């Protein structure tokens, strides 16, 4: 009998055979290339950025065309499917290598950059030769980013920048900073901001480290917000040509929002919120304390199943975002909703784990008797940060209510 496949007329929660094959290929690559030495480097590469082995590896990954899959061909991409990129990112994220993301910078450059800027930045970002520090937050402007004060004053064909940025995480190794500055102090808050892409070695820029509560001892690489260091970055009469501006003058708020929206979703955002679910289940399956296993405790079992369900919702929200992006549909509230649910889930799991492991969950990296090298303890210190960064859960809920549900401003 002829068994022609049914024409696809319904929603689809599965990956195509090609995508399954891609996943297998990436996994095989990881088996072959992410050796013990590479893993060792990832685990012990102190302050952030990539070590020499990972940098080498990253070049091979880029040669395989696994980075920037959705980008236009002329800038090194393949005009491919967002979900393919997602699959690659998920597999590499799981071994501590971030690919394809390039933070919120690349999407903004793609959307708002001039042809020269695209040529200057995109291929380099793709190969890992260019890295962008994110210069948004200031001492007096965090969640309320539009209050930023860092000034860029026009002077002939140049801009002269003065001000301070906070928590510029990769500023101590990045090649450039993706900077939001005020170009028109008299315009309404959102309409006087511009974005600049500035080489970090431009005279007048200084970087001072800020050490996090994960810095001593340092956290295992898989930790949610396990980063040891971030920075303050100071701008003192930093002169840059106008060609450093990304997008139109005073349109920076909208250019920046474009990138941020995409940066709130995707594989790494998803994984930082759900990996502890897998970790604790896999851990207790093989663990007993003097013959007593948490895996047999009905309260623990109920709670872990509950968290597992929540994690599925994180996964499905990520898939929803991917589906929207693939259809070229803008988010109204979906990205924000995901950015509420997933980080808060991550915190619930992290804190549940402390009550499953009790005193063992205190033990940090390097301690005698530490479980999973202190991962769970370090996660307690970091998990909640995920609900503050890149749009805090409070602000994200405001957006769901106002943009998604049309509720009035206070």
């Amino acid at each position, binding site marked *: 009998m002829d068994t022609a496949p049914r024409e*696809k*007329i*319904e*929603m*689809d*929660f*599965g*990956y*195509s055979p090609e*995508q399954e094959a891609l996943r297998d290929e990436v996994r095989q690559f990881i088996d072959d290339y992410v050796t013990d030495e590479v893993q060792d480097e990832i685990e012990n590469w102190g302050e952030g950025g990539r070590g020499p082995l990972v940098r080498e590896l990253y070049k091979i990954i880029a040669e395989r065309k696994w980075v920037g899959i959705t980008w236009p061909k002329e800038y090194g991409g393949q005009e491919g499917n967002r*979900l393919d990129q997602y699959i690659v990112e*998920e597999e590499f994220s799981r071994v501590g290598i971030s690919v394809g993301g390039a933070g919120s910078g690349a999407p903004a450059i793609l959307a708002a950059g001039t042809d020269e800027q695209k040529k200057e930045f995109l291929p380099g970002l793709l190969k890992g030769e260019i890295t962008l520090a994110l210069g948004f937050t200031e001492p007096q402007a965090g969640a309320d980013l539009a209050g930023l004060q860092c000034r860029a004053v026009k002077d002939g064909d140049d801009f002269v920048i003065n001000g301070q940025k906070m928590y510029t995480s990769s500023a101590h190794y990045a090649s450039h900073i993706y900077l939001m500055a005020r170009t028109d102090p008299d315009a309404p808050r959102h309409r006087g901001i511009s974005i600049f892409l500035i080489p970090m070695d431009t005279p007048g820029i200084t970087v001072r480290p800020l050490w996090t509560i994960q810095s001593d001892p340092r956290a295992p690489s898989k930790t949610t917000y396990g980063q040891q260091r971030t920075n303050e970055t100071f701008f003192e009469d930093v002169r840059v040509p106008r060609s450093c501006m990304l997008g139109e003058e005073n349109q920076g708020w909208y250019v920046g929002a474009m990138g941020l929206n995409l940066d709130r979703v995707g594989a790494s955002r998803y994984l930082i919120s*759900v990996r502890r*679910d*897998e970790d604790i*289940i*896999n851990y*207790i*399956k093989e663990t007993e304390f003097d013959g007593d296993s948490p*895996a047999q405790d*009905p309260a623990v*079992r*109920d709670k*872990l*199943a*509950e968290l*597992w*369900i*929540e*994690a*599925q*919702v994180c*996964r*499905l*929200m990520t*898939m*929803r975002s*991917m*589906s*929207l992006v*693939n*259809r070229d549909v803008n988010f109204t*509230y979906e990205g924000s*909703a995901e950015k*509420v*649910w997933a980080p808060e889930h991550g915190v619930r799991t992290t804190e549940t784990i402390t009550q499953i492991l009790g005193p063992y969950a205190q033990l940090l990296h390097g301690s005698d008797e530490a479980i999973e090298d202190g991962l769970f303890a370090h996660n307690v210190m970091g998990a909640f940060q995920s609900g503050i960064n890149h749009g805090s859960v*409070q602000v*994200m*809920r*405001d957006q*769901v*209510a*106002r943009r*998604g*549900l*049309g*509720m*009035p*401003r*206070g």
Partner: protein
Amino acid sequence: MDVLLSEEEQMVKNLAREFLEAECTPALVREMELDELGYPPSLWQQMANLGWFGMALPETHEGQGLPLTYLGIILEEVGRAIAPVPFHSTMVAALTIVSDGSEEQKREVLPKVAAGELILTWAFTERNPKYLPETIHTEAKKDGGDYVITGAKLFVDNFNVAEKCLVVCRTSPESSSSKGISLFMVDTLSQGITHTPLVTIAKDKQSKVTFDQVRVPAANMIGELDQGWPIVENMLDRGTALLCAQMVGAARKDAELGIEYAKGRVAFGRPIGSFQSIQHMCADMTIWVDGGQMLTFEALWKMDQGLPASIEVSQAKSFCNEKCEAAVRSSQVIHGGIGFMMEFDLHLWFRRVSAWSMRMGTSFEHRARIAQMLIDQPGRVRLGMPLTPVA
């Protein structure tokens, strides 16, 4: 992968919504709470004419052979309208006949179901309301060419109007080779059956049904003797996922009522919907219902693809039980006192979503099932990858 509605699905959904908004008003819902039948036959017939009952039935038996997600979408809309019709119970039984009935049984039942001429239900639960084979004590004893059924069932949906009921019976003690369960299709008017209506939060029609030496021809057995448990498990899984679709639809509408109310109700000189605490409740309600909806449709999709879906069903029901309930309760809170008043419609949704959260498996039961698959089998788990069921 594209978890959003397809164009065709969106169309079906829109049409269903338009139809129900016109034909199934809160006034009708209220009327049916007091009605003896509990459903309006004219609305039932209109739904049949729209093709809803045959949607998921095979084309060989007057159905349309559409994916199960379509039926889910319709039930979601039926839930949104809290339409008082014996749709869910009819579909649960009909789909079991599709998957496990004989050709004879299919021919007898399915075309009539599609035409709206046959209302069905199913009976599982007895004294212990868990979904386990050992809770089944209703006995079916062979007697010549018949089986004779004796026992009592609880919480049987729409028994008052159903013509046939799939009754889960014990035919043997549980053994290593089977759970000793068989499934029979029973005429509800058979001699020896009595039923007592139960008074529920939802004011729907549920019954306690007793079977006293009820005679059923052996040809009414669905599947093989003593091998009924897997059939019943599938029936329950399908029923649970479809109930989730209904819950999600009703909870969504209820949440929307809360959100709209918040935009208009003024306190302390401004709409309460401009207070951040109210906005955040509304954001959470939306997130919860979205989550339940996606879990539900993933389960339905997997079933439709013939993939194992028990975990997904349990995920959906456990989540919907708690989060849909939280959403409708939040909506009550946003409404203050008025939501508590009989004359205001909101409670019509609130009471139903609450009742549905108590049926077809509690959160604890479903999570126990998930925990078993997560924890009791060897090997590592990974999100997004299937968990193979434990034997």
